[in-house]
């Protein structure tokens, strides 16, 4: 499910927007060359839909962000944003002056916690850090 997020004012000037200042998710803004800027989505899977309510106490579902769309930096390929970001990161390392850093690379990994019953009806709280992408270079 996609939750409505706070919208940031689109940039005024006509140059290509700075890689890390791209508009928010619902601004269907196109880059100066007309291509659709990559957009952030939220994937939410309800544990009820996975039939897990008999063992998971909290949370009620799993939520993560991902980028979709063509990254605004022209490598002229049509792979999805994450793969594009990985490839562009490599190219940027080789030619830092000519190819900018990819905007969709994750910049923040967040922890995730789950509270559940194990097979002996003990209650377990498990926490893993750096497991869920919650922010990337363009959002």
């Amino acid at each position, binding site marked *: *499910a*996609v*939750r*409505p997020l706070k919208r940031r004012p689109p940039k005024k000037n006509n140059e290509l927007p700075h890689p890390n200042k791209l508009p928010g998710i619902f601004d269907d803004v196109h880059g100066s060359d007309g291509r659709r800027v990559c957009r952030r989505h939220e994937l*939410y*899977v*309800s544990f*009820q*839909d*996975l*039939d*897990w*309510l*008999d*063992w998971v*106490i*909290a*949370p*009620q*579902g*799993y939520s*993560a962000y991902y980028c979709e769309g063509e990254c605004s930096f022209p490598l002229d390929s049509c792979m999805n944003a*994450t793969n594009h970001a990985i490839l562009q990161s490599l190219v940027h390392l080789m030619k830092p002056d000519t190819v900018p850093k990819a905007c969709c690379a994750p910049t*923040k*990994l*967040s*922890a*995730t*916690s*789950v*509270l*559940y*019953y*194990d*097979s*002996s*009806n*003990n*209650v*377990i*709280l*498990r*926490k*893993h*850090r*750096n*497991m*869920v992408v*919650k922010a990337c270079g363009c959002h």
Partner: protein
Amino acid sequence: GSGGAGPRPPPGCPQRRLGARERREMQREVLAVLGLPGRPRPRAPPAAARLPASAPLFMLDLYHATAGDDDEDGGPPPRGLGRADLVMSFVNVVERDRALAPQEPRWKEFRFDLTQIPAGEVVAAAELRVYKLPSPRQGNRTLHVSTFAVFAQHANRESDLFFLDLQTLRAGDEGWLVMDVTAASDRWLLDGTKDLGLRLYVETEDGHSVDPGLAGLLGRRAPRSKQPFMVTFFRASPSPVRAPR
């Protein structure tokens, strides 16, 4: 998604029903992110002995207290759980009371099944939590509650006990008694103890033994939200490397 209780996404959000294969894949994916080897199958408790609620209530409070730390950016370990990243609460499976001869000390023993502790985990702290009611019979005298781990039991003589904690309280006090049993964890991790016994003795100031039940310490026959349980905090181990997708 299907109907039924639980939060519904705001109107206008695209939803899709998961097919059987998609559901299996999504389950595998989410289990991997949650760091779980597989989907636990809790045993359905017999109707008469419904599960105690004390441990889940405590753990749910702990979950909410530390949920805010989930958005930290991989910095130092969060405050709520300290150095722990795995917390296990164990339901008390067997309870024994002993008061043979009048002159012998009376005690109450709780046993815990530790088989679900993952190998290689290091204990940061462990607590035994027992609820105490006011005990009018004792007036408001001072009571000393000692906690021991039962290391070995013998048919013809007293068990081998290992002292863990001493708490002093008033007979009229009420609330959760929290005993530090961390010292017992060295033993159960070293020799792989799977059945841990924790024994409580209660004495007055002048050394007279008091039946723990009469002192107000509740056991398995207490209301579900006041039954004893044990909580163990395991030291943070390096997060598993998240396989790229």
